[in-house]
């Protein structure tokens, strides 16, 4: 009998310990802040008094960050992803009928399944159904301007709406927002939470928008612009735009003695 165990033997288990890939803690990939707008972006004037000035405190992801709310089809109604019908009173809303579709992915390229995607927008004239919006373009009696969807097993989502119009806002005296749809996405953990805006290919207001140009990275800005997707359009009915959304990637985690995420 050898008195000494081999060096690779784990004394707690008294059997050889096979080498396995380093298991992650389920934490998310560090956020690349260089592609996001800085908190303080003076060209977007509202950010000046609403931006923290101290450094953010970097936090290794704990259970509080890698977990997040879970939603299901019970949370939604049958018309929630149809903005053409979900507020219609006596007809369809005015505007270009469009389908918006795409996938919610993470940085590893995997689809993010069963995650809640919410969206809101102005009507075709650029007016929001909001008690604080006083733009002179009229409210559309048949358009609410919000919806939501759950991604499927592959991270795919889709909804139907009318293309929003551009509108003026108080930043400079002649500032106009390009046509856009706001998106809110959850992901699997609260640290993936993201709100962003989708823009439309070819909109001449994109390069002069004080909000869009807070993004310091040209490629990151371009990724917010949805291309026309003729293949997904419905002939004689609706054009389509494709918008993929990427959330932070996640290191592998333990799930029931197997690794998930690898």
């Amino acid at each position, binding site marked *: 009998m050898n008195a000494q165990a081999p060096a690779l033997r784990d004394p707690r288990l008294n059997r050889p310990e096979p080498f396995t890939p380093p298991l992650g803690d389920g934490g998310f990939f560090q*956020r690349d802040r260089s592609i996001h*707008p800085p908190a303080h972006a003076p060209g977007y004037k509202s950010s*000046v008094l609403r931006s923290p000035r101290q450094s*953010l405190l970097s936090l290794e992801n704990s*259970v509080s960050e890698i*977990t997040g709310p879970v939603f299901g089809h019970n949370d939604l109604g049958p018309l929630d992803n149809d903005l053409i019908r979900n507020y219609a009173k006596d007809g369809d809303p005015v505007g270009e009928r469009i389908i918006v579709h795409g996938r919610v992915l993470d940085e590893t*390229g995997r689809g993010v399944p069963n995650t809640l995607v919410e969206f809101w927008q102005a009507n075709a004239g650029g007016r929001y*159904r909001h008690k604080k919006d006083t733009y002179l373009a009229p409210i559309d009696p048949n358009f609410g301007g919000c919806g939501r969807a759950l991604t499927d097993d592959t991270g795919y989502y889709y909804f139907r709406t009318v293309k929003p119009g551009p509108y003026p806002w108080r930043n400079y005296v002649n500032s106009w927002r390009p046509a856009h749809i706001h998106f809110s996405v959850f992901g699997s953990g609260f640290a993936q939470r*993201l*709100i962003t805006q989708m823009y439309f290919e070819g909109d001449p207001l994109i390069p002069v928008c004080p909000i869009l140009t807070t993004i310091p990275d040209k490629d990151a800005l371009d990724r917010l612009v949805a291309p026309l997707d003729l293949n997904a359009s419905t002939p004689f009915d609706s054009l389509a735009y494709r918008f993929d959304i990427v959330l932070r990637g996640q290191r592998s985690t333990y799930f029931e003695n197997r690794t998930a995420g690898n």
Partner: protein
Amino acid sequence: MPQPLNYLKETASQTAGPYVHIGLIPAMAGFDIFEKNFSNVLVTPNTKGERITLEGRVLDGTGTPLRDVLLEIWQANAAGRYNHPADRSAGALEEEFRGWGRAGSDFDSGLVTFETIKPGAITDKTGRKCAPHVNVWIVARGINIGLNTRLYFSNEEAANASDPVLNLIEQPVRRKTLIATRGERAGKVVYSFTINLQGPEETVFFDV
């Protein structure tokens, strides 16, 4: 050239804008559209734990309350368990308690309130105990990327003193920016908080 690392890049954040209510809490925008709505009430009659109101404001660099801000909170239940499969801790799960809520600030006062329960202490993956806390996410016009912070509880002095995250904050004076103050009003427990976006009492925000 080495092999390419084919990671995708995260989608850039954009401000939620002044009309965030339309999409996330449409009743506050002034209309009803969804059959089912998310709200600032996290509890049901069956929820276990001490009922509390979280009540506070978010202040800009002049000390003025934001009146178009939206907060979301994410918390464990009274047993310290998050309602999510990645929480492998021993505390009992309550299926009915999602542990998440959202609230818009009052258009006049800027007040934000949540009706919830006080969460239990969290046991992290290493077995360490973390003081009870609520995770907070803040979006608004003028906020380009959502701000993450936490709320701890003023009557958990011992747990707060040993909490690993609070102890990461170098200046003890800044730890106080995360403590909600316990009070009572009409027999109800109210924890009050102030989130300062700037200034000498700027709240600690996290890069999670």
